[in-house]
């Protein structure tokens, strides 16, 4: 598609008045289509078709080798009575309910600290973001080692304060809190987004609140947080969707070929069980039904968050 005939456009161009937004109107219809064609093809082949086909497969029994056999709603019936699905759902919800608020509060505290860091802010910001670059597999390895119950660094630190740290990697009650602690290490991007929002809070408003005698805490609660609430909302939505699908750290640390020595039920997230069903047991139909359910859950959770946002999120100014 190199050099699409410059002469043909040259003749029509001079007559056209200059336009303001979004470019000029009268081109051959296929030219914009040519530009967006990569996405168009990709959307049809790798998005629209797979979503529809997942829906179809969820009604079948399919192992990749033999053709799919139609089952009707059997997969869904099995899904509701599958104890492991229920366990995976519970694990995923519990983890999401713990990790999303914990990450939000932690990253907000860090952003507030950074805001007062003055000239050194750049250095600290770099330090806080660095773990976000770490491959999640390596994060999983670090979890196993640093949070190891007997010889891990975290429990050694807790020991300095006389606290007898739990077995983060083997005690079913402490596996999910351990994953939450680990997730706090990679809040770097939330910190940066929140810091950018904090820097947009107008000084005049804070000064006015200070004059009225509002304490630091009241200024934060009644001025700063309402103003940055769209950003907080954005982070909560994105983090929730990500947590509901979390896979790599937990899979690395607790699943795979070698882990037969201890129970890993506590770390069985929904995405992990889905992956196992599809690619370890080759239950493609059943896994597709699980995928449809996950899709529905993400949609419902997001819809609930949109409804809640109407009450709690303040948009200053007009349309976003």
């Amino acid at each position, binding site marked *: 598609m190199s050099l699409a005939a410059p002469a043909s456009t040259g003749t029509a161009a001079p007559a056209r008045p200059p336009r303001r937004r979004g470019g000029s109107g009268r081109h051959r219809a296929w030219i914009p289509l040519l530009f967006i064609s990569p996405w168009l093809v990709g959307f049809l082949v790798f998005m629209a078709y797979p979503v529809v*086909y997942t829906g179809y497969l969820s009604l079948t029994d399919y192992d990749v080798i033999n053709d799919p056999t139609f089952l009707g709603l059997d997969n869904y019936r099995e899904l509701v009575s599958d104890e492991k699905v229920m366990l995976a759902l519970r694990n995923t919800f519990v983890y999401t309910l713990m990790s999303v608020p914990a990450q939000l509060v932690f990253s907000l505290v860090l952003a507030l600290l950074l805001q007062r860091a003055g000239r050194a802010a750049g250095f600290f910001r770099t330090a806080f973001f660095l773990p976000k670059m770490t491959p999640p597999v390596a994060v999983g390895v670090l979890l196993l080692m640093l949070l190891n119950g007997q010889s891990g660094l975290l429990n050694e630190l807790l020991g300095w304060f006389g606290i007898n740290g739990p077995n983060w990697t083997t005690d079913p009650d402490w596996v999910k809190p351990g994953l939450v602690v680990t997730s706090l290490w990679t809040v770097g991007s939330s910190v940066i987004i929140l810091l950018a929002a904090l820097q947009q809070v107008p000084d005049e408003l804070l000064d006015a609140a200070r004059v009225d005698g509002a304490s630091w805490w009241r200024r934060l609660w009644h001025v700063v947080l309402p103003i940055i609430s769209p950003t907080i909302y954005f982070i909560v939505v994105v983090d929730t969707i990500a947590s509901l699908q979390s896979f790599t750290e937990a899979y690395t640390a607790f699943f795979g070929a070698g882990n037969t020595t201890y129970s890993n039920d506590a770390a069985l997230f929904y995405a992990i069980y889905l992956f196992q069903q599809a690619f370890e047991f080759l239950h493609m139909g059943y896994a597709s039904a699980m995928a449809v359910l996950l899709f529905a859950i*993400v949609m419902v959770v997001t819809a609930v968050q949109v409804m809640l946002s109407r009450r709690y999120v303040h948009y200053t100014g007009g349309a976003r």
Partner: protein
Amino acid sequence: MSTLDRASEAGPTTSVTPERLATEDAVPAEPQRSPRQRGTVARVLVGAALVLMTVAFVYPFVWLVSASLKPRSDVFDNRLIPETLTFDNYVEVWNAAPMAAWLVNTAFVTVMATLTVTISSALVAWGFARYQFRGRNLLFGLVLASMMIPGAATMIPTYLIWNSLGLVGTLTPLWAGNVFGTAFYIFLLRQFFLGLPPELFDAAEIDGAGHWRVFWHIALPLTRPALVVVALFEFQAAWTDLMRGLIYLRDREDFTVPRGLKSMLDQFGFGGEWHWELIVTASVITTLPMVIVFFIGQRQIIQGVASTGTKG
């Protein structure tokens, strides 16, 4: 995403001076402890907290590098400085695993993924930003909506497509989907294109430049900062991805570094041969390129995150 737009909204705030004056009046009225003293105490506390947090965020890296320089028996001793310093692990890890092949594979996948997604996303973004055509808003709405769809909803048919093409077991499925662009990058680059003055491109067309020339020789060079951000994001995403490696790669020789690290954990970790010194060393090798990329592209990455609200 909202932060960018809010910057402009916050701009024209009314009447600064009255409040400013009032503040200055209020200062002497503060009782007892002088505000300057309180400010100093607060500053010291903030500084201490920042330093403490920095140690917490950076120490795991230090621990990892330190552990990789210890002999097998000392890996878990949590000493900052290894008691006996050894580079044997870095020699041994090349014998224990095809580390060189993994690095080459990952580099190939990462470069291909980054190049293709940057170019194709820019093409599509330009199509949406520059031209008006029927159905444009509907199609762009689909771009945005497709960001909401969880990966699991497309994972299985996508696998079946690559399987029917006979490409499972090769590196191709790890990057070739990027030829079609990615919704988030299309959105990001379109925003950037919309910020450029269209008169510039109108003038070039009047001078006889074709659509492709306007895009390739005028628009793209102006978009370099945004292209760099897209390329850095994708470089990180492609290098660190585990799930595609688990789904599509079969033979050990074909693994990427994250997939290889997982296989080493399975082989040498719990339930395996307990060679944690090799796992630690492989973790350093997996992570180091990302640390280097971060220090090269730090400014762009952080500005990219701050202005787009992405969760890289």
